[in-house]
């Protein structure tokens, strides 16, 4: 943990979609390591480094809310498309989007706050100019000043994540997670997608212990694909 960082993140809504319920999206109870990596990456990332999430602290009670929205249902039918291609024209070929609609409900988290504890490793793409100190400095400087590559989000982009760096000497923000929620089994949770092996998802047995979810190493026994 020599190059560890701690980032306080919060937002009004969050949706860390469970892969088994992604048509009508249902969020996990807690931010996934994959989503946490996405937040870190939004602040600083280079191909030379790989973020590794060590633990996620849950600071607020886990509460859900349902939101139903009109989403685009499907792509156009192949026959219509090929008809248009044969004519070589898109003029006048329309379908009412109202007829191509799916109303999908999302069960999302409300009023969330977490502390992400993470570190990074250098990858094989690291060049001579890359050393851990440099990337750590860049990340810390950006997080401290509120700089980012793009605004990080809580699982989906319509739910922005706000962030602030927790300096090494600073105490963690106080948790108001209720006592009955502090320690619980969260079941199998997505760890991350293994992009090196054909985008295979890997899962781990997540549990909150006193408000903290520890994350096993990605390629360990505890993470199954």
């Amino acid at each position, binding site marked *: 943990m020599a190059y560890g960082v701690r980032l306080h993140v919060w937002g*009004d*809504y969050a949706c860390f979609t469970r892969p088994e319920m992604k048509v009508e999206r249902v969020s996990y109870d807690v931010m996934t390591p994959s989503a946490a990596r996405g937040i870190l990456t939004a602040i600083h990332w280079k191909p030379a480094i790989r973020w590794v999430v060590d633990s996620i602290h849950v600071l607020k009670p886990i509460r859900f*809310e*349902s*939101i*139903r*929205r*009109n*989403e*685009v249902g499907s*792509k*156009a039918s*192949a026959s*219509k*498309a090929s008809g*248009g*291609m044969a004519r*070589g024209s*898109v003029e006048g*070929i*329309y*379908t*009412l*989007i*109202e007829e191509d609609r799916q*109303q999908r*409900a999302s069960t999302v988290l*409300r009023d969330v706050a977490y502390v992400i504890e993470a570190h990074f490793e250098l990858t094989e793409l690291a060049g001579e100019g890359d050393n851990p100190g440099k990337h750590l400095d860049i990340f810390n400087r*950006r997080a401290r*000043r*509120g*700089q*980012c*590559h*793009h*605004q990080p*989000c809580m699982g989906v*982009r*319509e*739910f*922005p994540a*706000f*962030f*602030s760096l927790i300096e090494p000497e600073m105490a963690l923000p106080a948790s108001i997670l209720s006592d009955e929620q502090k320690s619980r089994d969260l079941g199998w949770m997505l760890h991350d997608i293994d992009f090196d092996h054909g*985008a295979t998802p890997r899962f781990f047995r997540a549990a909150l212990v006193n408000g903290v979810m520890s994350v096993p190493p990605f390629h360990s026994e505890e993470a199954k694909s």
Partner: protein
Amino acid sequence: MAITNRYEFVYFFDVTNGNPNGDPDAGNMPRLDPDSSKGLVTDVCLKRKIRNFVELTEEGHPGFEIYVKEKGILNLQNKKAYEALSITPEPKKLPKDEAKAREVTAWMCANFFDVRTFGAVMTTEVNSGQVRGPVQLAFAKSIDPIIPLELSITRMAVTTEKEAEAQSGGNRTMGRKHIVPYGLYRVHGFVSAKLSEKTGFSDDDLAKLWQALTLMFEHDRSAARGEMAARKLVVFKHADALGSAPAHLLFDRVKVERVSGERDTPATTFSDYRIVLDTNGLDALGVTVEEKF
């Protein structure tokens, strides 16, 4: 030329005797936050209006096509890219060649305003055609709780002959309409300069976005909407692409004061509010503020 500065914006709009965004889960009642009874308007609802406005004002102008039209077929729009580049389309797949795939994506960004602004998923099976846009909106929420009203209305006609017979020629239909008597909504938006480099979202596009936010409700009149109006647009411009201050601290500088009536009770007009902007020390942070209106 992509934009070179990061931006955040706070946008206010209000509704009088209308339904800004119906909730399909609640029989098209105005969306409500169950915790606070404050009104909600989703991000996609506002993006739809931005697209409609750009389609309306830039019709036929090259580079300002709209990909997700209210009456459009997505795959046919995709095909335009293939035709322009003379690539034989493989069904549901981008070309295997990565360079060609990038060309298709770049062409889509160059031609479609909403693709380079909000991004788009342009393939059905292969992931490589996904573009993340620089502009992102969050949900809009009303400043104070709203009290939606349900109005019953009658129509002096019926749809079918059978109904007419059942009413022995009375020929009336009852309907329902939901309105918010008044609500002022606030929404936060983000513009990432770094993502604009990938889609080519330019300063002209940004100007178009501000124009759309200023005028889009003027072209979205309908029986359901009532009177909706854009009230204020505060834009925070950072000195560089990465930005120089956290977004949440900038948003905190825009405060809404209730000058008439109790806080946390429904307001009746825009003049019940005063929007206050704290610009103290922003210069030192390297952030400039523009109040678009």
